[in-house]
């Protein structure tokens, strides 16, 4: 089999140009989907029979929570690729993921708290999903902290890659242990939404939002990746040719 296409990803100029070409293909569908889903979710979808209009925050909350976890997986995969094939660009991808992932974790926590206030009567309960998300946030912080504390880019890349992989092995264990911990200490939470029984006009905007957020992440990742490549290759001659 011809592996040239794969090896090409090892070349920063190639990836830089490719990322530039691909960005609009992620950004425009993301914008259209998010706007459409906002209209569908905030206007067209019927109010929930129990939660009224309060449930509508799910259209921001669920996609951010999904992205927070997915970005960690993307980051760990990129880090693993970088570690195994010694691919500098893969490390740049992992580095660009961390900040976005941490922010989506914060967004999902904040929207979760805002949702919790009217539904549970308090901003914070030690709900297993909220808690696991908080721990995920600390994993992101540790990853970024380790990266920031090592001056040499190549060593920072590989050390944080090992941490990302350790984290990804641990993440399922943490999630399950937290679920288990909570099932003992607290009665099952009030909010158990039966997803399959959700009516179509509630579910469709949610799915569109999930896809839109994911594409948005793709676009942001590509833009950040280009910036990261520029920063790393700032002394390379191809940049001068590229930018003049």
């Amino acid at each position, binding site marked *: 089999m011809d592996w040239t296409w794969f090896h090409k990803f090892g070349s920063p100029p190639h990836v830089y140009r490719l990322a530039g070409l691909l960005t609009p293909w992620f950004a425009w569908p993301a914008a259209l989907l998010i706007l459409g889903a906002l209209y569908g979710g905030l206007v067209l979808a019927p109010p929930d029979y129990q939660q009224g209009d309060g449930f509508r925050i799910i259209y921001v909350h669920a996609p951010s929570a999904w992205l927070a976890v997915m970005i960690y997986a993307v980051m760990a995969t990129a880090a693993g690729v970088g*570690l195994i094939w010694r691919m500098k660009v893969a490390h740049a991808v992992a580095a660009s993921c961390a900040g976005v992932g941490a922010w989506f974790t914060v967004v999902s926590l904040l929207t979760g708290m805002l949702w919790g206030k009217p539904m549970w009567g308090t901003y914070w309960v030690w709900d297993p999903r909220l808690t696991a998300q908080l*721990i995920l946030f*600390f*994993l992101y*912080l*540790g990853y970024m*902290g*380790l990266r920031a*504390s*090592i*001056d*040499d880019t190549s*060593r*920072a890349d*590989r*050390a944080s890659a*090992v*941490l990302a*992989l*350790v*984290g990804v*092995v*641990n993440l399922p*264990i*943490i999630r399950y*242990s*937290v679920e*288990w*911990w909570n099932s*003992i200490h607290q009665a099952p939470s009030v909010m158990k939404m039966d997803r399959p029984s959700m009516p179509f006009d509630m579910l469709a905007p949610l799915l569109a939002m999930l896809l839109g957020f994911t594409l948005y992440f793709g676009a942001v990742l590509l833009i950040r990746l280009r910036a990261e490549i520029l920063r790393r290759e700032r002394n390379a001659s191809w940049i001068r040719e590229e930018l003049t």
Partner: protein
Amino acid sequence: MSAPGVFRVAAWVVQRDLRLATRRPSQVLQPLAFFAVVTLLFPLGYTPELAKLRAIAPGVLWVAALLASMLALESLFREDAEDGTLEQFVVSGQPLTLLLFAKTATHWLMTGLPLTLMAPLVGGALGVPFAALGGILSALVLGTISLSLIGAVGAGLTLASRRGGVLLSLLTLPLAVPVLIFGARATELAIAGDSLTGPLYLLGAVAVLGVTLAPLAAAAAVRIGLE
């Protein structure tokens, strides 16, 4: 002369670290004193009533053990990296994974095991009934093994960074969450006089996973940190 076998070399590492520890007992004693002081703070800060203390004893014991073993981690690789010992490990041609595992095991002997042995004393002060001690001891043995192993990865990773301390805790504490949950749960069950096989098995599973994977990750981390 033929090269020594890998287990022989691992035994030498254990011997050397034990000898170093006996020459500098303060390194072993300080985390233990820290463990005792932290648990002392709870009766002072919360209430001297034994019944109330007994209710929070599992959390107090495990959080204190977690923090004490975190404190001891700083000494695991740092000094050997600074005086070149770890570098010799890397170039020795012996499997670094095994050598670091030997180091971590010795570290556990010097921190995790004494912490476990101190638990009856500390637990007794928190109103834990005598009958629960057996269960608490077995949970702590398994839990501290995992803590040392997780910590070894963190200690290896922070070798490359300028500042260790706080970063090391930030890296390791989230990863230690399952140990804390299972350990505290086992302790709670032991105090209540119930069967604690469930959480004990889970602690054992985490320890087995740690023994299998953590030395590999620690070896990769140390290699990167020493460059």
